[in-house]
């Protein structure tokens, strides 16, 4: 490209176009790094497990789906579904956090701040305790449906409140209250339950990616995929919303509808994660922050895809650690995400206060 062409492309010094030009190269760099990280972490994940399978055979199995049936099963039925679920749910969780942070105009809002995980836990506990007494055996889908139903109940309440209440703080309080109420109900049920019924409740509430199968992957892919697309299509109104509701409305965003859409999209993401893997903490707060810092902007049209991939990479990485750190015992995924995520969040809060001074 001749010098003149570059000038034309990048615009005169100090102009908007030149800034966009500079930013674009930064975005491209970040996306390339993310893509590489994504591929690397997938490869590492597929390659590691308690059973050692040499890398060459892995590629063979992945591509041809044939070979030693034992190893094929391990790769295709155990590792791959799990990796894909970790990726999709990680992305979903990060986006859920991003959407709520936009809504509350506060970077510390997490995906479960509106009480979704408490609602899910309540219905899961109910299912664990009463399903067997009522004579229906539990299938894994009972728990998934239970968690989803519990999330929807919480979401329903929040939406009702959100339609009447204009004040953010009041909405937040409502979410916290719902969380408390659901926890109280859960504790009440636990008091009457036998130990064996609820022995796995605590483990459930710390989250796990183990035991994922392909039908889980299919459902998650559809739900997360559609919701991601919708979120991405909302990049423009989200960008307007970042200036506050008043300005967003003045450029044509239908605020009443949009608030509900934000809450709904975010809730579907976090409800899906809770349903399949249980509540997982810190991902929704740490990842959007890291991504925005890396990209140097909070414009949704780049932040949304990057956050999704970032969340996928982070969760796959944490799952790797959870699986391998003390093999064959598995750590709960929240434990690992907290170890890595909490320092990020703490740093974020400190640097914010410094900035505000």
């Amino acid at each position, binding site marked *: 490209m001749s010098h003149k062409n570059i000038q034309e492309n990048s615009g005169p010094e100090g102009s908007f176009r030149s800034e966009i030009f500079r930013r674009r190269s930064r975005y491209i760099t970040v996306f390339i790094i993310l893509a590489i990280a994504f591929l690397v972490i997938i490869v590492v994940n597929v390659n590691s497990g308690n059973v050692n399978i040499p890398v060459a055979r892995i590629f063979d199995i992945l591509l041809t789906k044939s070979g030693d049936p034992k190893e094929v099963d391990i790769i295709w039925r155990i590792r791959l579904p799990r990796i894909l679920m970790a990726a999709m749910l990680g992305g979903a969780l990060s986006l859920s956090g991003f959407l709520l942070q936009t809504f509350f105009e506060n970077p510390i809002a997490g995906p479960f701040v509106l009480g979704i995980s408490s609602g899910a836990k309540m219905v899961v506990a109910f299912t664990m305790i009463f399903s067997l007494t009522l004579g229906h055996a539990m299938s894994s889908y009972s728990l998934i449906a239970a968690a989803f139903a519990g999330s929807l109940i919480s979401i329903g309440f929040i939406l009702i409140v959100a339609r009447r209440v204009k004040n953010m703080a009041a909405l937040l309080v409502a979410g916290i209250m719902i969380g408390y109420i659901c926890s109280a109900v859960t504790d009440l049920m636990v008091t009457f339950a036998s130990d064996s019924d609820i022995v796995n409740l605590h483990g459930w509430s710390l989250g796990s990616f183990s035991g994922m199968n392909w039908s889980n992957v299919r459902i998650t892919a559809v739900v997360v995929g559609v919701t991601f697309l919708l979120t991405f299509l909302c990049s423009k109104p989200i960008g307007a919303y970042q200036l506050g509701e008043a300005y967003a409305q003045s450029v*044509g965003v239908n605020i009443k509808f949009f608030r509900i859409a934000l809450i709904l999209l975010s809730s579907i993401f976090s409800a899906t994660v809770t349903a399949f893997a249980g509540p997982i903490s810190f991902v929704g707060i740490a990842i959007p922050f890291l991504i*925005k810092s890396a990209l140097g902007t909070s414009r949704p049209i780049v932040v949304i895809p990057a956050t999704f991939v970032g969340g996928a990479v982070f969760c796959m990485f944490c799952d790797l650690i959870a699986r391998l750190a003390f093999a064959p015992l598995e750590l709960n995924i929240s434990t690992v995400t907290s170890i890595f995520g909490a320092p990020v969040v703490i740093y974020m809060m400190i640097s914010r206060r410094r*900035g505000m001074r």
Partner: protein
Amino acid sequence: MNEKYFELSNLSVGYNRKPLIEDICLDIKKGEIVTLIGPNGAGKSTILKSIARQLEILGGKVFFDSKEIRDISYKELSTKMAVVLTERLKTELLTCHDIVATGRYPYTGRLGILSREDEDKVDEALRAVNALDLGSRDFNAISDGQKQRILLARAICQEPEIIILDEPTSFLDIRYKLELLSILGRMAGEKGITIIMTLHEIDLAQKISDKIVCVSGDHVTGYGTPQEIFREDVIRELYDIDNGFFDPMFGSIELMKPEGDVPEVFVISSGGTGIPVYRELQKSNTPFAAGILYTNDMDYQLARLLACEVVTEEPFEEISERAFERAKELISISGRVINAGVRIGTGNRRIKELLDFAEALGKLGRAEQAGVLE
């Protein structure tokens, strides 16, 4: 044509279904600058927010280009009306360019991607507010005055027909106040953009507006040109001023005059020399009298507000006997006489006699001598 451009017809506005201001009737022409003034909490912002459709209208109608504003979709309205509000933005990692670029939203496609043309308009808008150098900086890192200009640029970038501003000059120092208002004046004059805003600085409002709307109590108490509205009694009543004056001639604000009916000092001055002395005496709460001032002298404008008595003379006349005698009386009453630097010419040569009279009584002093003005 006599078609109405922007009309408020029996408009009622308020919060939570309770009307704050009722029966608002305004008829605004294209390209006019209309300013709402009135005491705090009167409801000026409420009216603006209602016009901008941020707040539900409680009664009456708003017509924009003969269409009822309720029937215009948000999207269409956003190509015609832009706002600059008082809320502080809480942005994260957005540059000024980004902020201004949101003004292009009504014109961009599904994903909000800006075209070359949009990018140029952003630059143009920044240029219009003299903030081109701020473009790449983080919005949070600039001063309040700069932020306000960026927000105005954002509104300009939206290419609206009307810009609504809620106290746009509140956080600005004098320089930026002037700058902002001159930009608004240019927008109205050159581009025919109608400006509807609220201002606290009534002196500025007087100077820039085409129409003034007075808002107080529960209705609009006045609507007219600055000449009609800016009279001392109107302003006094509007703001319920009992501790000072507003001088519409110069658009200046004065504090209360010194207490007392009996002057302690008599100030002789002309052509503006008396003004600093009056101010000093006012500050020390010393009641004074001033004279002999021609009513077209600028000293007179201030003296009539601050002095307990002013001895005047008709312009271009010689000093009359009446005035002269009264002045002498006052000199006798006063403890001191200050010659603030009066210029004695042919017409007012009798002033010299007054000065001599004062000197003979031992009361005369120059401003500096008298301890006024160190």
